[in-house]
Structure formats: structure tokens, C-alpha cells
């Protein structure tokens, strides 16, 4: 009786999104369900395709800097960092010492902002309605205040310049950052106490959305997601870009690669970021923040013509490997400008992770991948 009933089940197609509270923006999943089990999932994107590349190919090199803020709008400083690295590689520009430290400090603060917010959202998706987000955004606001004070905007910082940063840190900001860094572990303890041993959370997250090591490697997964599967690849360690080789920090690695591992990796990475920040704040020297050769660039971005050639600058953004591929033909506009967006590539495995799970798990898995649609759709 039951057998014949089971054979008669039909697959049901459900559209999640593009307007859906759990899809972190305008993302759509075409899900085929057998009962409540997912048998096929096709991600549909492009609802936020803002022609970033086309616009960048038509304006000056510096003009693209504010646009990179809008790629991954949670961590504009990391995007600035990758783009600045790519152009500096192309035009062979040196960066002064103090600027390097400021860059690292800002990038790590961004990582804190991103990880804390994404953890909050993941828990929101799990059903812990809004409380973790409230806690996360409370911390985020403190860091955004620092960004506003140094760069002038809460989210769209536009702070990095080729050969340094736009302006020196205003007086008092370093002390403010020190205070935040000092208080942050306390908050993390509280956050972990709230969540990590929570039985409901463990049940919902463990053994859900397991990403095996081989698949993670072959599908070019990067960032916390890859490290949760045991892929030991952190571009801060591999490329040693900027001055990351001066700091001691560990790269946390997961074993199973499930949602819980990804969540925990982010928490651990925040602790490592705090550790890097502590070292950087101790060592930061005085000096210029902008290479004097490029300081004139700010006055006339249109006259900046890097030599013809190509370059690829990448950083370990909080989502994974963020890279900018630039081709210059010697004119003020880049010939080709391409963004290698980490969350876009990380979405490749969404279907593999979700197969065999329930719809409610798909939402959690998507939350654990940590996508930002501005970056996915560039």
C-alpha cells in the first residue's frame, strides 16, 4: 500500500525568491521537491546585475574605486584593497609603511563586520528571529563609526588610493579601534555562549550541507567555506600580500565541512582577526600614508595611464578570494576589468549541498555560504 502510494508522488516545483525573506537579497532558487526533500535546485541570479564591469571600462581607474565599494556592500574596504593591489601591480606603485598598516587594520575590521553580521543572519535564517542580528549590528555600528570617522561614509568607504590611503587617520581613532579590539573578545564570548552550545542550533546545523574536501577544491571554493572543509588555503598566508607576513595568526580549519563548521570557522576567524589587529595596532608607525608619486593622481584621475599590460590582484576577502583582473591598453580607461567574485563562485556547489535535504535546510545552507548579491551579480 505504502509502496504504491510512494510511487505515485509527483515532484513539486517551488520558486524561492527573488523576493523572499531568506534569500539575502534578490536571489532565486528553482527547487524541485519530492515531498519535502529537494531533488533538484537551480540557482537563478542576475537580479542585481548592475553592469559593474561595463561601467568600469568606461571611466578612469580611480573612478572605479567607489564602484568597488558597492560590489560587496558589507565589506567595502576589502574590495578597495583588492582593486588597489591590482592597479598597483599594473602600474608598479609602492605603498608607504603606515598606509600598509592602516590597510591591514581596515581590512581586518571589515572582516569582523562581515563575519559578525553574516553569523547573525545565519541564525536569523535558523529561526532565532532577529535577536542575534540585533547583537551583531550593535557591534557592527561601533566599527562603522570608525569607518565614518576615517573614510567619511558608513558603508561606502572609498578610502584606498593607488599607493596608499586617502587621508591619514584622524586623531583619536586609533584609541577608538583599540577599545573596540579590546572589547570584541568579550562580545564574542557572549555571542558564543548564546549560540554555540545551543542544542537546537547543533541539531539544525551539524551534518547539514556537508561539502567534501575534493568537491571544495575542484569547485574553486574559497574563504571560510573552503577552510571549513579542510582546504588549507588562506591568501593572506599564500600570497603574503601587503604586510601580512609580519603578523602571527592561525588559519582555522574544519573537519566535516557542514553548516556548523562554517559557522564556527567564522567565529574563530574573528578571534584571529582580533589577534592581527592587536599586533598591527601595537606596531603601526608614523609616516606618510600616500606615495608622493601618486599623490598628484587624486587631483587628476583622468591623467593616470598605467602601462599597457595585465594584472590580477587578489585578497582574502571575508567571503573568499576576491580578485580583480585588469587589462590596460595604456589609455586612462581599462581595456578589460573583471571581478572574480568569491560568493559567485561559491554558489556553484549550492545544489550539491542541498540535495536530499529539506527546504528549511536549503535556507540555512544558503545562509552559511555567505553570499552578497551585489558581488554575485556584479
Amino acid at each position, binding site marked *: 500500500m505504502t509502496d504504491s502510494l510512494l510511487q505515485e508522488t509527483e515532484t513539486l516545483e517551488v520558486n524561492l525568491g527573488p523576493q523572499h525573506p531568506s534569500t539575502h537579497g534578490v536571489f532565486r532558487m528553482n527547487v524541485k521537491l519530492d515531498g519535502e526533500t529537494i531533488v533538484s535546485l537551480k540557482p537563478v541570479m542576475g537580479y542585481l546585475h548592475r553592469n559593474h564591469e561595463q561601467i568600469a571600462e568606461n571611466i578612469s581607474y580611480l*573612478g572605479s574605486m*567607489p564602484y568597488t565599494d558597492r560590489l560587496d556592500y558589507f565589506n567595502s574596504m576589502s574590495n578597495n584593497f583588492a582593486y588597489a593591489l591590482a592597479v598597483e601591480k599594473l602600474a608598479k606603485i609602492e605603498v608607504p609603511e603606515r598606509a600598509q598598516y592602516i590597510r591591514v587594520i581596515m581590512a581586518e575590521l571589515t572582516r569582523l563586520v562581515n563575519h559578525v553580521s553574516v553569523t547573525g543572519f545565519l541564525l536569523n535564517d535558523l529561526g532565532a528571529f532577529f535577536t542575534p542580528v540585533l547583537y551583531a549590528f550593535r557591534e557592527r555600528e561601533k566599527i562603522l563609526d570608525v569607518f565614518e570617522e576615517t573614510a567619511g*561614509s558608513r558603508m*561606502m568607504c572609498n578610502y584606498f588610493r593607488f599607493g596608499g590611503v586617502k587621508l591619514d587617520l*584622524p586623531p583619536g581613532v586609533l584609541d577608538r579601534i583599540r577599545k573596540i579590539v579590546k572589547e570584541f573578545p568579550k*562580545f564574542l564570548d557572549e555571542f558564543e555562549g548564546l549560540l554555540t552550545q*545551543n542544542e537546537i542550533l*547543533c541539531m539544525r546545523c551539524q551534518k547539514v550541507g556537508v561539502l567534501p574536501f575534493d568537491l571544495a577544491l575542484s569547485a574553486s571554493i574559497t574563504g571560510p567555506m573552503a577552510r571549513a572543509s579542510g582546504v588549507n588555503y588562506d591568501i593572506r598566508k599564500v600570497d603574503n600580500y601587503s604586510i601580512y607576513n609580519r603578523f602571527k595568526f592561525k588559519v582555522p580549519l574544519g573537519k566535516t565541512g557542514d553548516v556548523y563548521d562554517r559557522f564556527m570557522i567564522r567565529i574563530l576567524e574573528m578571534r584571529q582577526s582580533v589577534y592581527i589587529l592587536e599586533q598591527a595596532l601595537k606596531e603601526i608607525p608614523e609616516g606618510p600614508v600616500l606615495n608622493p608619486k601618486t599623490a598628484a593622481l587624486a587631483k587628476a*584621475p583622468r591623467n593616470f595611464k598605467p602601462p599597457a599590460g595585465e594584472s590580477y590582484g587578489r585578497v582574502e576577502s571575508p567571503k573568499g578570494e576576491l580578485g580583480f583582473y585588469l587589462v590596460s591598453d595604456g589609455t586612462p580607461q581599462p581595456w578589460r576589468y573583471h571581478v572574480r567574485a568569491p560568493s559567485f563562485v561559491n554558489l556553484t556547489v549550492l545544489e550539491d549541498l542541498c540535495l536530499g535535504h529539506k527546504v528549511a535546510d536549503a535556507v540555512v545552507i544558503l545562509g552559511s555560504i555567505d553570499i552578497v548579491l551585489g558581488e554575485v551579480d556584479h
Partner: protein
Amino acid sequence: MLGVLRGMGITFKNFVTSYLFPRRADSLDTAGMVTVQYPEERLLEKERFRNFPFLIYDKTPDDLRCVACDICAKECPPKCIYIVREFDKDGKPLKRPAVFDIDLTVCMNCGICEEACPFDAIFMDHEFEIGGAERQQSLVYHKDQLLKPATYFAKIRPTDHATIEEKRRKEAEKKAAAAKQSSQGAAQTPPPPPPAVPPKSPQPNA
């Protein structure tokens, strides 16, 4: 079960501390109430905060610093600035704009115009309470809406104002010295053009 209870305990602690130890919204302390009662109470204004650009004048609105060189309009990444140079009766170009429009519906507050301006004429404002039911007319700001006095700039951004005033004073001194020297050397020759003129000669916008 223990984990759930522990989480609830932390939530309760947060609930209690926000009533027992209310803090200012700018405070960096981890615990406590943080809400800023917006219309009555405001966050401290950060000096570098940038919203929309405005034009600066020194004493009277006719005495504006902008010379209509069109650099900001060309550098603006999304192209939201539109400048037309003013001409006098004989058709000679004047060093001031006749039309200076900023399309607030396109501006992305990046501050590149402020950085690119060689005459310290355009700066980013702190005002954010802008908006309306209509966009095509009211959200394109014209010259008269954009003009603000230097005293206002000194009020919202005292540090930048001080450095810029210092720079301008030195330039004026240099100019005066040069003028004095040239008048001593050759009384009839006009003073040399100021060094701050951009490399490309500014052209009136078509």
C-alpha cells in the same frame, strides 16, 4: 537544554543591562541601551562624513570660488555634475559658472569632486535630510541651492577649513610677493598666472 537556558540567560542579561546602565549611542561599551532618539537627539557629526556636494563662497554669493574649469564634471564617475561657463556681454568667458547643476539622483557621495577640485570650491556636505515627492525637478540642485558660505564650512569641518585657509593664505602671499617682484622688475607686464591652473585649459561646455 543547558545551552538553550544559557542563551536565554544571556538575552535576559542584555535586557536588564539596557535598563540599568543606559549609555549614549556613541558609547563603545558592549552592554547597555544604544538607541539614539533620532529627531530629538542626534549622533555626533563626524567631520569627514560626506553626503552631497555643495559650492562654497567667501563673502557674498557672487564671490564664489568655482571658476567653472569643468574638472569635477569630468572626473565625476557617474557624471552628475553639469557646468556651463558664464560669458560677459562681449562673449568673453568669465571665471565663474552660469549653470552649476548636481543631479542628486545620480550622485553617489564618493567625494572625488572634492579631491579633484584645484580651487577648494566644492565640498561634501553633512546634510542628509533631503528628499521629496518629485524627483525630476526638485532633486536636481542648481547653483543657488548649492551655494553655501565659508563660515558654514568652517562650522561643519573645522580641521579641513583651517588647513585650506592656511594653504590659501600662503598662496595669496606668494602671489602678492610675485606681483610685487614683477612690478619692481617690469612695471608694465601683467602678473604671471597662478600656478594652480589645471594643465588643460578649461573649455566651456558645449
